């Protein structure tokens, strides 16, 4: 079946511009995660949704970062007033259940802020 998809794959933004990153999880998956991966580093947790409820947003770096999943499927990560330090790969993952389920990752969106 289809895996996790993300769009756009690449995004170049001027500093101060707002961006929106989309994630389409595997159909029927309850849990959805956003991670940020800096160059040469492992992914770092940003936020977690169970269906449409955002249960944890403790990893979001600042109040410029906002995520939503209004209908419990597609999710959008929005970054307002982008800064150069926001440049990274943003990964989305989904899992069928919650606790011990395997997380399956999408290809990521590579964001470059100039």
């Amino acid at each position, binding site marked *: 079946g289809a895996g*996790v998809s993300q769009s756009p794959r690449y995004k170049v933004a001027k500093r101060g511009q707002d961006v929106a990153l989309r994630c389409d999880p595997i159909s029927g998956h309850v*849990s959805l*995660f956003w*991670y940020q991966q800096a160059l*040469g*580093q*492992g*992914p*770092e*947790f940003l936020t*977690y949704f169970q269906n449409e409820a955002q*249960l*944890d947003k403790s*990893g979001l770096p600042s109040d410029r970062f906002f995520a939503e999943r209004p209908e419990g499927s597609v999710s959008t990560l929005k970054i307002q007033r982008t800064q150069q330090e926001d440049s990274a790969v943003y*990964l989305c*993952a989904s899992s069928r259940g*919650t*606790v*011990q389920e*395997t*997380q*399956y*990752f*999408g*290809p*990521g969106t*590579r964001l470059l802020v100039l």
Partner: protein
Amino acid sequence: EDQVTQSPEALRLQEGESSSLNCSYTVSGLRGLFWYRQDPGKGPEFLFTLYSAGEEKEKERLKATLTKKESFLHITAPKPEDSATYLCAVKGFEGSGGSNYKLTFGKGTLLTVNP
């Protein structure tokens, strides 16, 4: 707080030269230890989940093992197509400084297999 340290940072092997990657972890209660493979420009691809010390899992040339403090990813007779970054991650119990859903990753080991 859950912590994961992977070593070495980079490993270069000749085709057919077996070796192991190490993942040391600190977690109050382990819900699972995960190994992923990541190719350049792609997202992590799931390989294995280990849940308790002594557990082993195999897939083709890869074998993952788990103790109470570390996990090893053994690569037997590697081929050039095994070249990738290998990521280790843990999931801990809620209330232990980790959570029972989010993954804490190490920085990865960049494996290069030369023909």
